[in-house]
């Protein structure tokens, strides 16, 4: 059944909706964004959302912020983009600083420092898990999984162990990986 899309009413609506969205996003925002934009607000259908999200991920920059800019811009031009983006960042940003100040006020206490260490390594595990989530995609890589995994391992070695600047890692590994992928896809297309 086709869903009738609803347009955001105003820039204020955009700002407030994205503020609400930002305030709910713990760790992964994807699920929250989808629920709010597709189910609750009915701003877009699920398949439209999937396409927009894929586009937002293709471009550099934080994915949700890109999505907010793309969506706000589509409905209200530059000021719409600004309204959506600042909604996402302003209040959640201030809340985050309040949390940081709260923690820092007690960071000198040994028990708080220990708790922060424990939370820190737990967060580190989450971030690593977020990286491993790409494994199914790497397994299906046009270059085959061994080469995909090799590029992942190489960028890990360069970034985490040899402390290369990101621009160099992208310039070397990214260029080779994208170039090889391009050639492989080209051969596949013409085959």
């Amino acid at each position, binding site marked *: 059944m086709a869903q009738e899309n609803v347009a955001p009413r105003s820039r204020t609506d955009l700002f407030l909706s994205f503020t609400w969205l930002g305030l709910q996003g713990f760790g992964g925002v994807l699920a929250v964004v989808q629920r709010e934009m597709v189910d609750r607000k009915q701003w877009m259908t699920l398949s439209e959302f999937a396409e927009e999200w894929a586009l937002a991920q293709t*471009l550099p920059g934080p994915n949700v912020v890109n999505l907010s800019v793309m969506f706000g811009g589509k409905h209200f031009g530059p000021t719409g983009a600004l309204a959506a983006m600042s909604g996402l960042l302003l209040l959640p*940003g201030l809340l985050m600083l309040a949390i940081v100040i709260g923690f820092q006020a007690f960071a000198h206490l040994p028990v708080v420092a220990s708790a922060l260490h424990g939370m820190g390594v737990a967060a580190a595990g989450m971030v690593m898990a977020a990286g491993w989530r790409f494994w199914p995609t790497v397994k299906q890589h046009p270059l085959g999984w061994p080469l995909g995994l090799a590029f992942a391992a190489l960028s890990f070695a360069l970034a985490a162990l040899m402390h290369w600047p990101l621009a160099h890692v992208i310039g070397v590994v990214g260029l080779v990986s994208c170039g090889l992928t391009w050639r492989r896809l080209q051969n596949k297309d013409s085959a």
Partner: protein
Amino acid sequence: MNWSLWLELHLHFCMLSLLAVGGALAIVPEMHRYLVNDLQLLSETAFSQSVTLAQIAPGPNILLVAVMGWNIGLQAAGGFEAGGVAMVTGLLMALSLLTAAVLPSSLLSYFMVKWLHLHQHALSVRAFKAGMVPLVMGLMISAGWLLQTACNPQMDWRLLLLCVASMLIVLFTRVHLLWLMLGGALAGAALGL
């Protein structure tokens, strides 16, 4: 903090914004290299606190840039003891770095979205998307590894175990992230790590 250093930081984050394929976590290794190793504007502790607290607060991950800006500004102006001036400096620095980190990529998104809609199935776009995936995977695992090392410089095996456990729980269960953070905090406090 002098103006030339501030300008350099601001411009560096503008560049990172355009290199942030894969989002905020993918630039964490670069921020560590640049702010902790090279410029020494952040201690390992301040770095790990910034990333950790950004994970427990709601909001997009990119807000960790604001927390790093806050810490840099606060330290540069003499810390909490310096009072209001340091807080204002921290706030301005947070705003400055966050703006730098999101504005260039947002402008790109704004102007590229139509082009990308039309060309999303073009060979070049598909090759870029697929080609960058292994890199993003490697960079995000790097981000986790550097955060682990920053929290655990002595490589205490109990913290290492906690990190691996957290990773496996995220990968194989649907436990809410906040429970995991709480568990980490309790384990850390109880064991005095």
